[in-house]
């Protein structure tokens, strides 16, 4: 297995291979956007350092001499008169719930589109990919409370339902992780994957306990923190009244004098989140909204592999890679 490129590495390599997020955001349809990312990721797979991944993106693949004939799908041969190797149906299919933060803080953006647009696109992309993998995908949106809950299903029309839910505007204001995570713990009984997509710019006092509860129920939790470049760098020039998107509070800030302290405190906050994730065995990834979504896809897949969520798949992938 080759070294796994980090998001930064993929960023360095993405300028020619990956879709510019700003250009991607110009696609109005979320489904098309997600499809573009997924197909773009797939088309770049042969040239990407993702070689060796035992990733199968199609339900069947054409028989090639040397394949194990035990996996030929004879029914499909009967229908099509062509030999295809059948995907191994694993009775441990992934059940993944994507949890999307739709609070007002996610509405901030300095790169031409907001974090919410980026997060929606990311969740739509993940949904598209998982559905294409015949995984059950569910969706939870929240702001200061759970707004929408789409159970994880794999059926016809489910993807459409997910996209529609994603495109709905949320009326909430502030970010409150407690209530949504508690409800998820109640409503998601079967173990699966939970992907939390949020900027996490809110107090994290109770975050550890909520995430620990989810881990205790056996869920695999991934935490994607979406941040805007301006939130990381605070690269403002002139003093201004900064208005909090969620509380409406305004304070006069001179960026020249406040930048260092802001970055320190933000880093402390992020470090706190990382520490929580490390303690609870949660995979944490930070995505800046100017990062191509293919990189996020890659991180997601890597996370799945590392966590052994597809053990069968992982062994077959290893034989093929060999």
């Amino acid at each position, binding site marked *: 297995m080759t070294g796994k490129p980090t998001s930064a590495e993929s960023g360095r390599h993405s300028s020619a291979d990956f879709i510019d997020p700003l250009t991607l955001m110009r696609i109005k349809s979320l489904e098309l956007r997600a499809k573009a990312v997924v197909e773009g990721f797939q088309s770049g797979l042969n040239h990407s350092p993702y070689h060796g991944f035992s990733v199968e993106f199609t339900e069947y693949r054409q028989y090639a001499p040397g394949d194990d004939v035990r996996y030929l799908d004879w029914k499909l041969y009967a229908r099509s008169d062509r030999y295809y190797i059948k995907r191994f149906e694993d009775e441990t299919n992934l059940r993944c719930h994507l949890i999307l933060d739709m609070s007002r*803080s*996610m*509405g*901030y953006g300095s790169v031409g589109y907001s*974090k919410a647009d980026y997060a929606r696109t990311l969740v739509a992309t993940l949904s598209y990919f998982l559905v294409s993998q015949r995984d059950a995908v569910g969706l939870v949106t929240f702001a200061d409370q759970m707004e929408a809950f789409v159970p994880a299903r794999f059926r016809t029309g489910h993807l459409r339902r997910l996209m529609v839910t994603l495109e709905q505007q949320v009326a909430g204001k502030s970010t409150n992780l407690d209530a949504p995570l508690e409800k998820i713990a109640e409503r998601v009984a079967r173990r699966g994957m939970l992907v939390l997509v949020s*900027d996490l*710019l*809110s*107090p994290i006092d109770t975050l550890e306990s909520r995430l620990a509860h989810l881990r205790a129920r056996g869920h695999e939790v991934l935490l994607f923190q979406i941040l*805007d470049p301006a*939130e990381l760098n605070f690269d*403002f*020039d*002139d*003093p*201004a*009244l*900064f*208005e*909090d*998107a*969620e*509380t409406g*509070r*305004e*304070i*006069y*800030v*001179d960026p*020249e*004098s*406040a930048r260092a*302290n*802001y970055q320190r*405190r*933000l880093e402390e*906050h992020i470090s706190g989140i990382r520490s929580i994730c490390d303690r609870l065995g949660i995979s944490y990834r930070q995505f800046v909204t100017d990062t191509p979504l293919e990189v996020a896809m890659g991180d997601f897949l890597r996370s799945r592999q590392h966590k052994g969520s597809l053990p069968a798949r992982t062994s077959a992938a290893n034989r093929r890679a060999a």
Partner: protein
Amino acid sequence: MSFLAPLFIAAVAAVSLPVLFHMIRRTPRGRIPFSTVMFLDPSPPQITRRSRLDNWPLLLLRALALILLAIAFARPFWRTTTGANVAVNDGRQIAILLDSSASMRRGKLWNDAVARAVRIIDDATPADRIGLFTFDRTLTQVVGFEESSSLEPAARKKLLHQRLAATKPGWAATDLGDALTYVAETLVAADAKTTDQQSEKSKEIILISDMQVGSRTRPLGRSKWPAEVKLSVEQVNPSSTTNAGLQLASRTTILKNEQDNIRVRVVNAADSTKEQFQLRWKSDGPFFSTEESINVYVPPGRSRIVRVPFDPNLSAPARLVLTGDDHDFDNTIAVDRTTVQNLNVLYVGSDTASDPDGLRFYIERAFPDDGLRRVTVIGQPPGAPAISPDTRNIGLVIVAEPLLDKQLDWLRRHVKEGGTLLFVASSADTYQSFGQLVGKPDLKVREADVEGYAMLGDIDFAHPLFASFDDPRFADFTSIHFWKHRQIDVDELPDCRILARFDDGTPAVVTKQMGRGSATLFASGWHPADSQLALSTKFVPLMNGLLELNAGHLDRRRHYTVGDAVPIAARANELATPSIMHGPESQTVQLTSGQRTFTGTVVPGVYRMGDAPDVPRFTVGLAAAESRTAPMPLERLESLGIPLKPIETSATKVAAAQRERQLKAVELEGRQKIWRWLILAAIVALMAETWLAGRTTKQIAIGNAEGAES
């Protein structure tokens, strides 16, 4: 450089305010929505690197424009001495006119007035010419302009102070009109004498007075006030205004006897606050009468006549004193008593007193009895060997018949001793006696040939006999017709004075001084056969004039006002020896031989001529108008055509100088109009600022675009 409106210069300091605010606090450029401010702390205002000024030239241009505008609004100008075609003012000509009348004796009025005069003298500049005058009934020059201007300023002030300190208020009335008129003429005349033709000294009269309404101002309306002379009034006011004056209600203060009453007038000033007063007799010394005082009620602004009985316990002369008001300068009148003067007129003639065709008939009626003088006409029959020894107190001898030698001798002695002799005859024989008397026994007299009638002409009004007729109203004698008259050759009468001529040139009235007396000749009789003289209005005054020519007899008036000239003798040389006039307050004045009038009536009281106890006396009192002490409105002077000017004190002079300076500044600034150039410069600066700001904005925009592309 000076400024008309220097307060606008403060706007220059305001230019620094925006810079200061910019350095201290940078105004937020807007509101930035952010996801969360949980990691941000409010920034205090401070000068940071980013707070520094980025574009100095732009700031300087804007500041320059503001500064130029501020200076332009301040209206700057250069103080120069060129272009001011104004004559140099080298001082003023000031006449200080100080009221020294009797009313200035009230309270501290005089001290206050002197203090003001001192202040005016001290406030004067070295270029000022000052004259000092005092006035009451007459004007007195204390320091003239020529004397004042001949001294150095310090010596001038010292002299003025010294002379001022020596002045005192008198007792006379206030003749304000004459004083102002004369001083104004003196000011104009003094300026005409100056050798400096380029200077234009302003002329001022500073009048220091109580401005009582009793001041005489009538002369001011008779002539035009010189326009270049300004009048300033320093009015002094007493602390208390109640003043009641005591005046005579008749022309004399003579009591005929101790049972007599005297009528007085009590006048209460218009600004008085009291109404009740008292009258009380006082001896000539310090003692008041023991009789009760008489209460008098007089409302303010009114007067009242009171008949006051004489205190029988006192002897004349005495004084009547008014009490109850605040000022006593006019509260006393002197009262004297004298007997009736008896005089005889000796008539030497044969006609009787009841013969209307004779001369005596009219003489009997020519001397009325006025209560102070009783004249008796005593007839001397002609042919009597001597004048009757009963003829004493002969004031006049009238000869109408030829005289015997013994009579002539007596008469000659009588005249030389001071008697008055009148020769009048209807025939030429009577004139022979006159010729004998005057030493011309062969005097040729003939009857004149009168066609119709003759008239008097060429009258010598300088002689005391005709002096009372020296008035256009009384000087016409042409209405008296003379049917007959004697013609005397003038050359026949040496050393005689012709007092009147007929219209044919022949003497009508001739007089000759003989010793202390005089002999007068009428060339015509006054009876109807000769003329209309006895029937004319001039006959009685003529006869009484002859009677009063007698030496030693005073005028029948016994009361005068302070400053009056009192007649004390009728003819020259009638005082054999000089006499002394005794006045009040132990005043004594030596009278000179030949002195006819006494002008030393400066103090009210009783005056007597001589030391004998029975010498004639007269009283002097204050003028009635002097008791009218309420102040007159100054508009009265303006209504008489006198422009009033406010008094210049040091403060007002400073204010006037500032006003003049301000006017000059406005004039200079109006010519220079520097503000126009400043506005133009400000416009240029603003145009440059606009260009530079536009250029800077473009550069920033270009830079931003390049940064975005990179």
